């Protein structure tokens, strides 16, 4: 088995189906995480992300389909899978009544570590996650960010090969979120494979090597962040008329020319629309000129992941990210096929 693992993907899931009563949480989901990379599972609340993670973590049995973790079957070889994974999510939590140290010692002991090494490992992780000062305090006294760091530390006690992070930064302030991001990057640099679920497009963009966009229980697109953004010529035209009174006219014109549905910003008066064909631009400029609409801005840019998501799902991601520190570079990526899944 050991020799084979080199060649296997860390996570291979095929045709996962899960129903809860009449609700179909997963309707045939395929996922692949390459060893040593971050797979971002991106989707709004209720898309089925958590169900997928729970199946991969052996907490749920799928109604159909199979999932392999490092080549081990999540149902038939659950015990082996559990030795390879670490789990951090809003549901898999630390014991609030125990101190940080005792939480980590308990997990070390449960993983079969003798008392002294478990203690050493706990201290090591608490130091790494900057929790040494709070080590002796019950976890219920921790702030949200500290709790999340302790959760993360708890999932790392056994040095897992694969780490599941289910919405690790939801509800965190930007600073705590950046800390978690830094830790994830360090873990990946150490060779850990990470499955990250998030409803934040920016988070997937920042961390993931591959992204699977999931909506209503199905994977609707896969690819690298660049592929998803550049895919199928998705570009965005931004037009801001000099006069607010021209906004409806601009929106109407753009809708007619592109066949898309322009979005209008009430604040700035900016009208944005997706364009698939660059040859439309001269026509649009001419049409605007014909109507004597004076422009403050006319720009073509690559679609943001947010807009890709909107185009794929027909609705926006439910929540928007609290503003991040540094804008990431948005330089043009080589055009690549958007790998739409056949389902």
């Amino acid at each position, binding site marked *: 088995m050991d020799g084979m693992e080199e060649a296997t993907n860390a996570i291979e899931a095929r045709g996962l189906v899960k129903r809860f009563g009449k609700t179909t949480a997963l309707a045939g989901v395929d996922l692949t995480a390459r060893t040593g990379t971050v797979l971002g599972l991106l989707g709004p609340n209720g898309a089925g992300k958590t169900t997928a993670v729970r199946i991969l973590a052996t907490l749920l049995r799928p109604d159909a389909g199979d999932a392999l973790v490092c080549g081990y079957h999540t149902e038939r070889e659950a015990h082996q899978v559990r030795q390879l994974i670490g789990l951090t999510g809003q549901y898999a939590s630390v014991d609030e*009544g125990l101190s940080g140290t005792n939480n980590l010692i308990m997990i070390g002991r449960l993983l079969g570590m003798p008392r002294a090494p478990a203690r050493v490992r706990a201290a090591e992780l608490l130091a790494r996650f900057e929790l040494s000062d709070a080590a002796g305090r019950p976890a219920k006294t921790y702030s949200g960010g500290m709790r999340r760091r302790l959760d993360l530390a708890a999932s790392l006690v056994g040095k897992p090969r694969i780490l599941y992070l289910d919405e690790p930064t939801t509800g965190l302030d930007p600073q705590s979120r950046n800390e978690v991001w830094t830790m994830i990057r360090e873990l990946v640099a*150490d060779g850990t494979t990470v499955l990250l679920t998030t409803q934040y497009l920016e988070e997937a963009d920042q961390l993931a090597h591959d992204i699977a966009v999931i909506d209503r229980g199905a994977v609707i697109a896969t690819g690298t962040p660049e592929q998803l953004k550049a895919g199928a010529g998705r570009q965005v035209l931004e037009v801001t008329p000099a006069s607010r009174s021209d906004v409806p006219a601009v929106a109407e014109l753009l809708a007619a020319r592109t066949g898309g549905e322009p979005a209008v910003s009430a604040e700035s008066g900016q009208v944005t629309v997706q364009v698939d064909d660059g040859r439309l631009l001269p026509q649009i400029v001419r049409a605007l000129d014909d109507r004597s609409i004076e422009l403050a801005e006319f720009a073509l840019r690559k679609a943001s992941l947010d807009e890709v998501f909107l185009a794929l799902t027909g609705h926006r991601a439910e929540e928007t990210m609290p503003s991040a520190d540094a804008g990431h570079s948005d330089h043009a990526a080589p055009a690549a096929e958007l790998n739409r899944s056949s389902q």
Partner: protein
Amino acid sequence: MTTATVPAAFPAPARRLGPVAALRNACTLGWRSVLKIRTNPEDLFGLWLQPIMYLLLFTYVFGGSLAGSTHRYLQFELPGILVLSVVFATLGTGMMLSQDVATGVFDRFRALPIARWAPLAGAILGDMVRYVITVAVTLGFGMVLGFRIETSPLAATMGCLLVLVFALAMCWFSAMIGMLVRSATGVQLWGFLLMFPLVFGSPILTETARMPGWLQAFVKVNPVTYLTEAERALLLGGPAATSVIRSLLWALGIFVVFAPLAVAAYRRKA
């Protein structure tokens, strides 16, 4: 970051867990439960204070009118208060389990390579410590108030062990409620609703002869009645064999019915 690097080569994961490792899992989780008693001041407070409150209230509120003297009543009621305190203490098992499910601590356990039954067994193992404390406080404070064991230290020890065995069975009932009810407060509500008739529909506080006939019929089949009679016999004297055997049979019966139900409810969550 250099402290926790992942080693280059991984050993293949083990196929299954040995019985010794499984037992060690249960002990670790038992240690956790005991630790929670120590670190949670309210829990510790309640654990000590409840038996003391029961003793003080029942002795001084009912003593005079029911037995003519508080001391006579204390001798009568203490074996029963022992039963009452421990039966109510078993509610803690279900409350803690339902809290573990609600907070996600259980999911963390279930994603670890540990024995499936370890979290349940660990919780119950840890709770045995609570029951021992309850018994010790009840008996100890009772003696401070003037209770005297009229049999032998051996018989009294047997009495304590018997009530602990009964608690070990009852806590599976509590564990089942803990697995079925979503919140700790829900467990408390259901537990009290189901346990109040058992505890008070018994000769713990008064003699059965003064109760109406329909109630006497219930009292006669109530397991708490047998346990109370056994405790009286072991602490104060009188024939003990029948009531002790009946209590043990009841404990076995409760265990046989509710342990599988609790495990089934637990597996359903799993």
